[in-house]
C-alpha cells in the first residue's frame, strides 16, 4: 500500500562507529535533522566488528531517546535494535572505544544482523523514500546484496547511496561487489572533501554544553587530543543525503566507479552512468560548518507519534466488537 503523502525521507546509516569520530558526528547530524522532522532514522548499523562500537552507538541512541517519554496510554516504544557486523577486526583499537560507554548491550545477540535489519527497515519505507549513507567498509552492504530478491527492493525504495570514502577501501572485495551490483545511483564523498570541510572542534565546549554528559562531546574528546577539527567526510555524505537540493554540494559528471587493488577509487566517465563524486563549493564552507554545529548539537526531541498504539486504537473502536472473530 502506498500513501499519497510520504513521510520525510527514511535514512539508513551504516557507520564505522569507533574508527572515526567523523562517523559519530554524522550520527549526531542525523539526529539533529530527524528532530526537526527533515528525515527519519530507518536503521542504524555498524560495520566495525567490535561490540564496544555497539556500546557507543547505544549510548548515543539512549541519549537522544531520553526525550521520548511514555506516549498516550503509557505506551513506551521499544528501542530500535542496532546492527553490527561480526568478523575480524582489521584496525587497531581506538581511544574512542576505550571509554566505558553505558549500554544495555552485553552480548552479540543483543544486537541485530545488519543486513537483515537494513532489509527489514527498507521494507517499511515508501517507494523512493529512503536514502542510504555508508561510512567505512562496505562489508554490511555486500552482505545485504547476497540476500534473495534484494535488488528489486533496493531499486524500489532507495533513491541514492551516499558513500563516505574514508575507510571504504578497508574491505576491497565488498567494495567491488557494491560498486558492481548496487542498483541505485551512488554518490561518493572523497576523503579530501572531508579534509576541506572539517567539523569545528571549538564548538564542542560551547554548543554541546547544555548537557555535561553529552555522548557526542565525550566521544569527540576521547577520540583525539583536544583541540582539533575533525575531518568530516561522513558528515558531508550525511548532509548531502538529507539535503541534496539545498546547494551545499554539487556532483561530478556521471561515470562508473572502480576500486584498484591498492584501494584507490576511480571514476570512469560514462554518459548516463550511475556514479558521481560529491564536489565541495568553497563558497559554501561557512554555511556547511554552521549547519554541522547547529544540527549535530541539537537537543534531543521526542519524535512525533507515527500512529496510535494498538490498545488506543482498540479504545477508539466500538467497544462491543472484539478483534479476531
Amino acid at each position: 500500500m502506498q500513501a499519497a503523502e510520504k513521510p520525510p525521507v527514511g535514512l539508513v546509516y551504516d557507520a564505522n562507529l569507533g574508527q572515526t569520530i567523523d562517523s559519530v558526528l554524522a550520527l549526531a547530524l542525523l539526529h539533529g535533522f530527524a528532530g526537526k522532522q527533515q528525515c527519519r532514522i530507518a536503521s542504524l548499523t555498524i560495520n566495525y566488528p567490535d561490540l564496544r562500537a555497539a556500546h557507543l552507538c547505544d549510548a548515543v541512541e539512549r541519549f537522544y531517546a531520553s526525550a521520548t517519554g511514555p506516549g498516550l496510554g503509557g505506551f513506551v516504544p521499544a528501542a530500535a535494535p542496532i546492527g553490527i557486523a561480526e568478523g575480524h577486526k582489521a584496525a587497531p583499537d581506538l581511544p574512542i572505544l576505550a571509554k566505558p560507554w553505558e549500554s544495555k548491550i552485553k552480548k552479540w545477540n543483543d544486537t541485530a544482523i545488519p543486513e537483515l535489519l537494513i532489509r527489514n527497515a527498507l521494507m517499511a519505507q515508501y517507494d523512493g523514500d529512503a536514502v542510504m549513507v555508508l561510512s567505512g567498509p562496505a562489508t554490511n552492504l555486500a552482505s545485504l546484496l547476497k540476500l534473495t530478491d534484494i535488488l528489486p527492493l533496493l531499486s524500489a525504495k532507495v533513491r541514492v547511496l551516499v558513500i563516505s570514502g574514508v575507510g571504504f577501501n578497508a574491505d576491497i572485495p565488498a567494495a567491488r561487489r557494491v560498486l558492481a551490483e548496487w542498483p541505485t545511483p551512488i554518490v561518493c564523498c572523497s576523503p579530501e572533501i572531508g579534509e576541506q570541510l572539517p567539523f569545528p572542534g571549538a564548538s564542542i565546549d560551547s554548543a554541546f554544553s547544555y548537557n555535561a554528559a553529552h555522548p557526542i562531546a565525550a566521544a569527540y574528546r576521547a577520540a583525539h587530543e583536544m583541540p582539533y577539527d575533525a575531518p568530516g567526510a561522513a558528515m558531508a555524505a550525511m548532509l548531502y543525503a538529507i539535503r541534496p537540493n539545498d546547494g551545499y554540494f554539487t556532483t561530478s559528471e556521471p561515470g562508473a566507479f572502480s576500486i584498484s587493488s591498492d584501494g584507490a577509487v576511480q571514476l570512469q566517465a560514462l554518459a548516463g552512468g550511475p556514479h558521481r563524486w560529491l564536489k565541495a563549493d568553497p563558497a559554501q564552507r561557512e554555511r556547511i560548518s554552521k549547519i554541522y554545529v547547529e544540527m549535530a548539537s541539537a537537543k534531543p526531541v521526542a519524535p512525533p507519534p507515527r500512529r496510535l498504539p494498538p490498545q488506543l486504537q482498540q479504545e477508539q473502536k466500538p467497544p462491543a466488537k472484539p478483534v479476531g472473530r
Partner: protein
Amino acid sequence: MIVTRKALARRTFLRGAGAAVALPFLDSMVPALATAATTLKPPVRMAFVYVPNGVDLRNWSLGYEGNLDKMSRILQPLEPYKRDINVLGNLTHNAGRALLDGPGDHGRCSASYLTGIQPRKTMSNIKAGVSFDQIVGKHVGAGTSFNSLEVGLEDARQAGDCDSGYSCAYTNNLAWRAESQPLPPTLNPRALFERLFGEDAAMTPEARRSRNLYRRSVLDLVSDDAKRLAQDLGPTDQRKLDEYLSSIREIELQLARADKDSIRIDPGFDKPYGIPADFAEHFSLMTNMLTVAFQSNLTRVATFLVTREGTSRAYREIGIPDGHHPLTHHRGQEELMEKVSRINVYHVQQFAGWLGKLKAIQEGDSNLLDNSMIVYGAGLADGNKHSHEDLPTVMAGRGGGHFQTGRSIVYRKETPMCNMFLTMMDRMGVPTEHFGDSSGPLEGLDLS
C-alpha cells in the same frame, strides 16, 4: 544362519468391514538382515502448536542461554521435558509487522506465521502464500494417508473483518494450500476421528447418534485381522500393538464422553456435535488423535491452531471470565497481566501433556517425540505492544536424532523465523534454498 523372519511393510493396515487402521512403527518393519545403512528409521514428523495474542514475556523469558536449567513460570510445565526441547529466542517475523499497511497485527501475524508472506490487507480477495507445512506435506505425503492435518479448538468464521481490515481468513487459519486458499482447522474431534479411521463424517448428528446405538468399535471391526497379525509378531511388537490399539480405544471412549457432555451441558446450543465442553479435554482428545496419526504414519505434518489469533475467549476453566485479547492489552496493570500469565501457563500445560504422550511411544531405540519436531509458538511476542520480534518459540523433539536438545538458544536480533522453517524442511527431506524472508538455515540446533 537361517533367517525366517520377514519384514512387515511400513504401511500395513488392519482391515475389517468399512474400517482400516494403520499400524504404528514396529520392530518387525525393520528387515531382518538390515545393516546400519539400510536400517529403516522411523520417519520424522513435524507439527506447529499456535497460541494467539502473544505471551507475558516477563514470565516466558528464561533470561539465560545454554543448558536448560530453571524454567520460567510459563515454561514450568515443560520441566519434565526440558531435555527434549529447545527454547529459541529472538526469532522474528518481519512479514507480521505493519511495514506500510497500518494496524492489523493480529491478522498479519497469523497469516504470515507459516507462510512467511505479508498478507494482502483485505476482507475479500485474500492473498497470503503457500505455508511451508503444505510444501512439506505435499512432498512427504505420498507415503502417508494425509499430506497434513489441520486442527483447532475454537470455532471461527472464515469471512468478514477480524482485525482492522484483515479478513477473518487470516486470523482463523494457519495452513495455506495456495496463496488464496487457507485450510480451516478441524475442530470436531469426531470429524477428525472419522477422517482418520472411517468414512461417515458426512452423516448428520442425528443419523450418527442413531447409528452410534449400534456402533461397534472400529477395533472390533479389525480385531480378526489384528489377531492374525499378532501371531507373527515378537513379544515387543505385540505389546506395542496392544498399546496402540488401546490408545485408539481410549480416543473412542473420549469421543463417547464428549458426545454425552455436549448433550448434557448445553442441549439447546448450536454447537458442533462431539466437541468436549472442557478445553483441556478437547486439547487432549485432539492431540491423542494427532499422536495416533503420527504413530501410524497416517500423516507426518500437522498444524494446531489452539485458538484463533485475536480471540476473546474466556478461560472460566481456570477462573478467568475475561476475554483473552482484551486482557493482553493490560497497559501494565498487574492484575490483568497476571491473568494473561495464567492463560499462558494453562496453554503450556496442555502442550506438555502432548509431549508426554509422544515421548511414551517407543520407536525402535528412540521414541515418537525424538523423531518429531513439535513447535509451540505465537505470532506475536508481547500482546500488549504487538511486537513481532523475539517470538515465543519452543522446539520439542530431536528431529530424528538430528537436534541437540535441552538448551536455551538466543539468536541475534532480526533472525528470520523462516530460517527455522528452512532447517525443518531439510529435516523433513525437503531441502529448500529459500522460504519467505529466510537468509539461511537456523544454526545451532544440530548435534555438533
